[in-house]
């Protein structure tokens, strides 16, 4: 009996870990794309995502007249938020980010990393607090009829072990996987995608073969912001958010990106997936409230013990 319930808890956490992890994976993919192509650490990524969640929240509240259609409208909001935030990211890159990134900082001491981090930290503070002014601190969410529905599987073992899988979460996980696959194909098989990968690999050499590096960066930044926002909006159907939510996700996102190997765009999806699993499964042995502490510990451990994905080589060329 006791064993059976342990198995059940484990299966439950495993499935929710995979499902949430797929969403984290997509989130990380957005950040990873920006880092991979531009080598920019965008600290405001989580806050831009929260803005997207508020956009969808307002949009759905405005158009969806009754409960039954909210799920459909949320999916529309996902698409709209993606497009809108692609443009927003594009503009943001043009007016702000490009001033501390790209070719103009390539030769600086630390390739401009510190100004980039600090500029986006400032941006993050402004967005968070502007959101606080506009929307207040009460947590919001986009409840759809599916948010409270679950598929029941079982009995899986004997007559005791059942598995419940939330429908809203599952749909968002499936969409996340589809979006990630589309992005991967875009990068691999289109000319623009190849240009972006070239700009990522060697910006100077790319300019020699006619790649417009600044344009690649602008598109990557817009696309990265849009992808993370899409993941965020889908997550808003089952997870409440408030203006400071971005902070909680920034470390989750970085943990995923670092784990996947900084710069490896595909790897970041798997990194995010693993972080989701770790977060959910940690509750087997740790109190729920320490979930994020576990993530931070994992993050530090990855940085310290698996830095290969990070630096490439340990010794600077002398």
């Amino acid at each position, binding site marked *: 009996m006791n064993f059976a319930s342990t198995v059940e808890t484990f299966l439950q956490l495993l499935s929710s870990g995979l499902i949430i992890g797929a969403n984290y994976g997509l989130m990380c993919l957005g950040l990873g794309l920006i880092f991979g192509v531009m080598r920019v650490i965008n600290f405001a990524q989580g806050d831009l995502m929260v803005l997207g969640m508020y956009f969808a929240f307002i949009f759905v509240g405005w158009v969806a007249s009754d409960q039954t259609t909210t799920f459909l409208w949320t999916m529309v909001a996902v698409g709209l938020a993606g497009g809108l935030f692609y443009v927003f990211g594009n503009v943001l890159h043009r007016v*702000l980010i490009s001033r501390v990134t790209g070719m103009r900082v390539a030769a600086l001491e630390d390739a401009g990393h510190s100004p980039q981090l600090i500029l986006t930290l400032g941006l993050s503070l402004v967005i968070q607090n502007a959101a606080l002014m506009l929307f207040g601190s009460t947590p919001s969410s986009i409840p759809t009829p599916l948010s409270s529905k679950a598929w029941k599987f079982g009995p899986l073992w004997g007559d005791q072990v059942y598995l419940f899988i939330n429908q809203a979460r599952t749909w968002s996980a499936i969409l996340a996987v589809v979006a990630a696959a589309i992005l991967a194909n875009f990068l691999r098989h289109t000319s623009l995608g190849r240009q972006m990968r070239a700009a990522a690999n060697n910006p100077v050499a790319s300019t020699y073969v006619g790649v417009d590096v600044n344009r690649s960066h602008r598109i990557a930044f817009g696309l990265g912001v849009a992808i993370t926002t899409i993941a965020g909006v889908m997550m808003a159907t089952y997870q409440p958010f408030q203006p400071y939510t971005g902070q909680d996700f920034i470390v989750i996102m970085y943990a995923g990106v670092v784990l996947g190997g900084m710069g490896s765009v595909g790897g970041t999806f798997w990194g995010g997936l693993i972080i989701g699993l770790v977060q959910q499964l940690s509750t087997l042995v740790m109190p729920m409230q320490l979930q994020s502490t576990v993530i931070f510990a994992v993050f530090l451990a990855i940085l310290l013990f698996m830095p290969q994905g990070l630096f490439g080589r340990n010794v600077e060329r*002398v």
Partner: protein
Amino acid sequence: MLYYSSTKRPLLGLLALLLVGAIMILATGNTYTLLILTLVSIWTVLGLSWNLLGGYAGLYSFGHAAFFGLGSYTVGILFHDYSVTPWIGWPLAALIGAVAGILVGYITFRLKGPYFTLAMLAYPLALLSVFEWAGWNELALPMKREGGFAYMQFGDSRIIALIALALMGLAIWISIRIERSRFGLALVAIRQNELAASAAGLPVLSWKLWAIAVSGAMAASAGGLYAVVLLIITPQAVFGLQVSAQALIVTMFGGLGTVWGPVLGAVILVPLSEFLYANLGAALPGIQGVVFGSAIMAIILIQPQGMFWAIYDRFAVKRTDEHPTVQDVTLPERGRSPLSVGFPLLDISNLSLSFRGLRALAGVSITVKEREIVGIIGPNGAGKTTLFNAINGFIEINEGDIKCAGSSLVGFKPEQVAAIGVARTFQTARAFPRLTLLENVVVGSFMRYSDDKLAIAVALNALTRVGLTDRAYVPAGSLTNHELRLMELARALAGEPILILMDESFAGLASEDIEGMLPLIQRLRSDGITIVIIEHTMHAMVRLVDRLIVLDQGAVIANGLPSEVVKDLRVITAYLGKRWAEHAEA
């Protein structure tokens, strides 16, 4: 901000600041104004704490809230749960801050640049949820109706404002002392070129640990006082990202790497944001964050070094009379008695190392005798610089042994290798560009002399030996390539080496400059220094060296007199390919 310039002027500035502060505090009776003045002091201290790491050592932390929060909760928990007065809890908080700093530093200093910055973020956020989980969600310091003084509770808020001012004065004083000492210079050197600093004998990790210990103590004492002032602490208020951000922002806004930066930043930003919050906070609750966020964005885009430097560059009279006086210092008779000429000084046996399967050095055995000048040549990628990196401790070797003057260097850190007497110069000169030549060179003599006057005298003497005396007070960033090469040599000499490893010291030099360096290097040899030099300029090499060693694909393929080596078939093959070797044979 020369490290050897006097502390008199900044200390006068500090005195004036404290005087103005005290007058303002005593003149006002308004509790709210006093609270703001107190907060200005607290944020200045936190800014100064951040500045020690970020401003001088270039280690930008996104996690100073960890120390601040630990300080707050140390005072709070001791008072609330154990009735320990903040008078005791406060110094304890500083101690805990220092210990936490060393722990965090020891773990996190392995990471560089932005990875360090992001990793620092994890500490306060992890602590935040731990404290929430542990049930310290809202910790209120008990009010003492009687005997408040014994518990740092005063009827008159002016007293606590004065205490905060005193803490700020102490933090500024400590910062000034650090800025104008070899501690400060070491941190700046590490920021500008960590590898060169360690090769010159600076114990990089321990200087960084000192910096983060002092920084942690300062931040924790600011946090401790914050608890006393506000009486209620929550994890979000003391461990939150906003605290870390504010530490960074007051400093970077005010000015990076100067004590006056955090002061200026806090004096402008704290009252501004408090004023806006008091007037508009009800309608616009996040106004403080917006003020701080936009301030830092503006400063990064417009004046990345901060306000202080903008003012300084425009108005400051450049003082040129601040040169140290060294006439009254007699140079010490130093140096070991040289071993007899011909004694093997550097003995490398069977040295191998590979990078992830790529074999860079394969069983290299080389012996260099006392007072020899040995040249190392070889085609690109032969492993020449890798050999130097292995000797001086930049990379770990897989196999073999490196002995210098009898002791094995295997497993030594660069600064330990330097202490044994092995100096080196770099393929591309590694200067500390914003420091003067003298400051660049004196970094090399720190490990030999704990007395600053002596260290400076030795550094000046080293500059004289390479002929750069008249450039001593020029920033290294404005030197020519030739002068940079000489400066590196002087920095090596300042450490009183027995062996100098010179990596392509003639690269990019005009032939008359090379002609000038040859007698200089020969003079070093007659002063008792052994030299190993990597160089491609063969016409200079054949005249300079006693012996040539040729490396190819990580192995020694020839070793002998220059005239013999250049005829060696294997050498010709390595450089020009088989066909030319056949030519040469015919």
